[in-house]
């Protein structure tokens, strides 16, 4: 699943923001259309949030939520999105696995913010 790291990180960001809408819709999708629409919406929202997010001393973007600083990861690449959507078209289970990973705690400390 590491090939979808960018998407997982983006969805995980929304989870940390207590916005479960996107991850739930992707995880519960029964066919590819809802995944595609949700990903489009998530990317649209993510870009809006990211562009207005302040940058800290180390140059990372973050958003404050309930007094906690949540790092804003990078935007998933076009290539990754394309592969993901193609894979979802042939196996909807891919979407569920990506959503499940986004809900889990990351296994290693994530750098977050800008690369």
């Amino acid at each position, binding site marked *: 699943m590491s090939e979808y790291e960018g998407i997982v990180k983006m969805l995980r960001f929304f989870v940390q923001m207590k*916005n479960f*809408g996107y991850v739930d819709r992707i995880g519960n999708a029964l*066919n590819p*259309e*809802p995944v595609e*629409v949700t990903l489009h*919406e998530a990317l*649209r*929202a*993510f*870009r*809006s*949030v*990211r*562009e*207005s997010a302040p940058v800290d001393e180390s140059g990372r973007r973050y958003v404050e939520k309930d007094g906690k600083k949540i790092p804003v990861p990078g935007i998933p690449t076009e290539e990754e999105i394309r592969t993901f959507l193609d894979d979802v078209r042939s196996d909807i289970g891919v979407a569920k696995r990506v959503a499940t990973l986004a809900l889990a705690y990351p296994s290693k400390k994530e750098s977050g913010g800008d690369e």
Partner: protein
Amino acid sequence: MFLSVGVRFEANVEALNMVETAGNYSKHRRVPYLVEEDGKLKTVYVPALSGESLAHAYQEHLVREALGLGLSVCDDCRRNEFYKSMNKVHLKKKVNPIPDDPRDIEIAIVRSCVVEDVGGFLYAEKPPVRRSSAFQVSYALPVKSVALFATSEPQLHARHAQMDTSSKKGNASEQMIYYVETGTALYGFTFNLDLDAIGVSAITSEPILDENELKIRREAAMRALFRMLSSAQFGAKLSRFFPVGGITEVAVAVTEHPFVVTSPIYDDYIARTERRLKVLEGLGENYLFTVATGEKVPEEALKEAVDYLREQGAF
């Protein structure tokens, strides 16, 4: 008596139900919809209004109508804050000390507030007391046959801040651009009202109020619906996105027992409702069915229902 209304309304460029704001983008509620195209089923995402949003509007109208008729409405509901006696803090404003028996709690709430009588409540303490809403409302969804023409589109707006050059510092911007996603569709929704549930205990099925008070409360409930539809005061962002369009059709059924009109998202909903009612008539149930399409205006159809209810002694 049971009232069921199917409503179709055209709304162009509306922002009646926004769901979230991300950065400078505020999104319209959208739902997946199953439509048939060239003999194949497909999922499309269409703009929608939640039943919660319509219910909130209805209850706001109910507050006004109830107060206009001299009925009791609690302080929270008067402010259109529908906490519905959810905990001790809110219930104590109505009855203090709080009784132990759930039946007494229900009686106290129903007596002191028409909105919680008609719209139900959930007192989530020990003992919990729950009362179902006497009215029901669906989501408003695009009419099936034209759902593929429904759109949701972001509109660009700018908010300006006046600044003279001396006070302008750094990268402070003079205008902020933002996007409001608007919906355009022919919507349909269903509204039901169980007039027999008003003022009657959900626990014992016994009337809590005297007949005269029951009648005035039923009338208030009807008036609120009338006002909501007639004024188009429902949904959000009306101040700058008042929908362009209006109610195109209503179908009103009044029956002795619960009966729900066929959903107005289907093109043949009026004919189907009529056929279904004919069957009920064969089983000995009286009813009124009236529609406003073309010639008749919605208010005329609703007035007929009000008159019929009065004839039947509902109020």
